[in-house]
């Protein structure tokens, strides 16, 4: 199963404070272990919400609000995508992360089968094709 690991923002990440060498080294070692164990699927850091925006939907109307989102208590600063056998395994891995004070949320990722009958055979084929094509583009973008 796949688990998305959402690292919550804090004052430092929202201020654009860059991680120091010690944290980068420790995180690098942790990421290395995740890759070696075959757990790491993806991982990225996000720029602070001051560089972002939100789009609200109301019928056909779209309202754009520029960041930062100071009232939002649940901002994300980064994420990983992990391949694991269970949520417990993901939790065990996360406990080893070199965090101090950070809040992290773990969420199960929808697999195609999880959608049930709403995901018709045609939609399933389309979904698989989209994933294969976007993975190609993603690999090219990482080079």
């Amino acid at each position, binding site marked *: 199963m*796949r688990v*998305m690991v*959402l690292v919550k923002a804090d004052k430092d990440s929202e201020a654009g404070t*860059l991680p120091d060498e010690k944290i*980068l*080294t420790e995180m*690098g070692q942790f*990421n290395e272990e995740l*890759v070696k164990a075959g757990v*790491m*699927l*993806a991982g*990225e850091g*996000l*720029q602070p*919400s001051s*560089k*972002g*925006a*939100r*789009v*609200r*939907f*109301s019928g056909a109307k779209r309202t754009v609000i520029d960041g930062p*989102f100071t009232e939002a*208590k*649940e901002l*994300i600063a*980064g994420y990983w*995508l992990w*391949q694991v056998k269970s949520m417990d395994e993901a939790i065990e891995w*996360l*406990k080893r*992360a070199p965090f*101090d*004070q*950070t*809040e*992290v*949320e*773990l*969420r*199960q*990722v*929808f697999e195609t089968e999880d*959608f*049930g009958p*709403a995901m018709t055979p045609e*939609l399933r084929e*389309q*979904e698989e094709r*989209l*994933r294969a*094509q*976007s*993975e190609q*583009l*993603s690999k090219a*973008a*990482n080079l």
Partner: protein
Amino acid sequence: MRFMLLMIPGGYESAAPGTLPDAKAVAAMMKYNESLQRAGVLLALDGLHPPSMGARVSFAGGKPKVSDGPFSEAKEVVGGYWMIQVRSKEEAIEWAKRCPGSDNEVIEVRQVQEFADFPPDVQEAAAGFSELQAQSGQLKGS
């Protein structure tokens, strides 16, 4: 530039385990996903099961503490995401606007940190990160 489009569906913070989107919503969203792919901007996408099927770990004082979902204090939660590659924030926002979102939904548009965004000393300390990304990318394909 890469942007993450985070779907924040109102009410999802209290969704029961096994909550599924209905067929019409799935079909409409798949049309949108297809348009992202045809335009050559779609890098990745995923839906997330509700927080009632998840967990949180807090690291106060460096000691991990686990709590099972749902999380009563959470007023908004992520329901899914798209990762897109575009030329500007404005272009990312335009794509977000085209999503067939419902009235209780918000999409947050966030720029992804690229290695080159960091100053030279930070890049040096993080050396090897792009190799890690490439390795994990290969893993995904297997």
